[in-house]
């Protein structure tokens, strides 16, 4: 700003003070009772210093932001922010440019493969959780990121997979490896049955119907005591490797892993095995998703996200194409559920509430709707970070909520700019 005359500055400061005061009053009004007066029986405890402090911070922030925006630097930042929102979000890259990423890929694979042999049991379980969330994120990314269908009940398919393993073992005597494909198919079937009637409707309705569906599944699991064990949960079988069990002594007439290889028993083996199996599945998923994106069906998903009416005018059956994305996502959710059940050894309906769905949506949103790398990074960060910051564990969901709002305002396309492949045809285009 060139005319930084004294009068001007006085005006600016007055403006900033007024806005800060307004923010202070509003924050106090909103937070005063809820944060400052804590219910205890039929009485309240006075904690009013908390809302005062928060309101003061908000007011100070507001004051500084208003001032900063009047300086030339603030103006420039604002301008850049607005420019970024205006620019097209997608980058077209040629095949040679994406070659450079191969080295990164190799390093990541080596690191991921060596980590379980170095980590403690605690970190190994954290890593397994991270891997499960990566899988869930990749699955939901097909539905939300590629096909643009907001599924808020994704956890239902996760639950179907997990309970598929646990109940399959209990009633049908299924092992881990036979339950894996069956549970995945069951989840796909659930997705199909829900999706076929529902996918005709508008996007917002879809969100709330899937939300309701997720709750229905959870409530049925919770209330159907005779079949699912209700809130008490059920136990799930541990995985086996070609009939070898990861237990100290053989339970189901098989042979323990350590006796077969003549090494000493280590309970870590089971977790290392689950981790490696998960890693394999995740790698497979990455390949599948990458190929799907360049296949006709993947292109149709993205086209549907862009403009459904145009898709219909091109002869694409939008219901079936959406259904394929929905079922594909459900399958992946089911697979993740099977791994979750076998890793926990025990499941109950509490693990499949709305927060879980919201967390997976948060992963996909923060990863940048549609970007595979972004989803993987977001899933790993969002699982490992809360473990590192144990003291703030209670604030986890709160932070996710704030991040989701901020992301939508600041970068609705996610942290990474989406990329598209450029096509080259020899002889037709130079």
């Amino acid at each position, binding site marked *: 700003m060139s005319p930084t005359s004294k009068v001007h500055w006085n005006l600016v400061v007055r403006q900033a003070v007024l806005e800060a005061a307004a923010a202070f009053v509003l924050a106090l009004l909103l937070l005063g009772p809820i944060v400052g007066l804590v219910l205890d029986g039929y009485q309240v405890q006075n904690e009013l210093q908390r809302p005062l402090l928060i309101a003061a911070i908000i007011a100070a922030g507001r004051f500084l932001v208003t001032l900063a925006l009047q300086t030339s630097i603030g103006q420039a930042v604002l301008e850049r922010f607005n420019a970024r929102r205006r620019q097209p979000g997608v980058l077209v890259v040629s095949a040679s440019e994406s070659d450079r990423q191969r080295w990164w890929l190799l390093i990541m694979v080596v690191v991921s493969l060596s980590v379980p042999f170095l980590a403690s049991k605690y970190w190994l379980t954290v890593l397994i959780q991270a891997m499960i969330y990566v899988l869930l994120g990749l699955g939901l990314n097909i539905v939300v990121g590629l096909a643009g269908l907001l599924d808020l009940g994704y956890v239902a398919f996760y639950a179907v997979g997990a309970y598929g393993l646990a109940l399959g073992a209990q009633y049908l005597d299924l092992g881990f490896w036979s339950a894996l494909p069956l549970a995945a198919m069951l989840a796909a079937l659930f997705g199909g049955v829900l999706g076929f009637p529902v996918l005709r409707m508008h996007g917002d309705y879809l969100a709330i119907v899937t939300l309701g569906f997720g709750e229905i599944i959870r409530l049925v699991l919770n209330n159907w005591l005779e079949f699912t064990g209700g809130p008490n949960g059920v136990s799930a079988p541990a995985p086996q490797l070609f009939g070898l069990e990861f237990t100290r002594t053989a339970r189901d007439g098989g042979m323990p892993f350590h006796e077969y290889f003549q090494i000493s028993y280590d309970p870590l083996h089971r977790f290392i095995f689950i981790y490696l199996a998960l890693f394999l599945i995740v790698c497979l998923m990455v390949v599948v998703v990458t190929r799907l994106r360049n296949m006709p069906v993947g*292109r149709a998903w993205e086209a549907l996200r862009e403009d459904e009416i145009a898709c*219909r005018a091109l*002869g*694409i059956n939008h219901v079936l194409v959406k259904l394929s994305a929905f079922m594909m996502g459900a399958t992946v959710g089911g697979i993740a559920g099977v791994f979750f059940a076998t890793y926990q050894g025990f499941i109950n309906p509490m693990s499949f509430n709305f927060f879980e769905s919201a967390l997976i949506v948060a992963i996909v949103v923060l990863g940048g709707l549609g970007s595979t790398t972004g989803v993987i990074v977001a899933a790993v960060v969002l699982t490992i970070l809360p473990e590192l910051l144990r003291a703030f564990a209670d604030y986890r969901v709160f932070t996710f909520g704030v991040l989701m709002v901020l992301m939508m305002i600041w970068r609705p396309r996610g942290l990474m700019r989406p990329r598209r492949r450029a096509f080259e045809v020899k002889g037709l285009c130079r």
Partner: protein
Amino acid sequence: MTTDPIHPPILEVAGLTMRFGGILALNDVSFEVRRGSISALIGPNGAGKTTVFNCLTGFYKATEGQIMLHTPRATTDLMNILGQPFRTSDWINPASFANRLYYKMLGGTHRVTQAGVARTFQNVRLFKEMTAIENLLVAQHLQLNRNLVAGLLQTAAYRQSERDALERAYAWLKVFGLAEDANRLAGELPYGHQRRLEIARAMCTGPRLLCLDEPAAGLNPRETVELSELIRRLRDEHGVTILLIEHDMGLVMGLSEHIVVLDYGEVIADGDPHTVARHPAVLAAYLGTEAVHDDES
């Protein structure tokens, strides 16, 4: 209207009526489009032109009437494939019940395109965040190898199908003079290019009848001339019949061989440009704007 044995109709519309609540948007509209012709649908604003288009291309289900499409392959009842409510007679006739149930479940707008009708939109509807060439690949969806297993394993047949699609897409881009824009995002192209890309995309579905909704809207005079040449070439070289809605009377009179005039949801004139331009009802409908005599662009 007499049936011309050399140029049989590709499209027959009879008694088309469309009601939105209490509003009668179309009232008993009937016309024919001859195979290999360039026909135009004109009329003052709000006459119901786009409503006719939406009925033809399956976006609206007409309240009454019949739309028949005759392609060399087959004759299609465009109303039937959209999926219609069951009638009382269906409950005693299992075959017609099954037919209606099938189209109720799996019918819809996309079937109309599959039968051979492609369209563009008044306000361009491209996949803005996909590249131009990807837009054309999406349009070829039905002609490609969509087998999931083949795609995931990248079999030879699948790769061949993708290569063919890419070549076809480039060929169409060349026809429309857009080869340079192949790998640019559709949303970033200049407006005139977007218009052409949308027509190219419609052509990629392999249509017999191409419906263009105000293709010249927003184009400058030079682009409009190029467009009319392009449309003529599509008809002459690529064997499609063209039906267009257009306000640019210069374009319509110069290009089309057959004109249907709508006003207040009814057909008020139908014939070759010369007849239509002198038709008293048309002059009355346009009176005040004098667009008929005024070749402004």
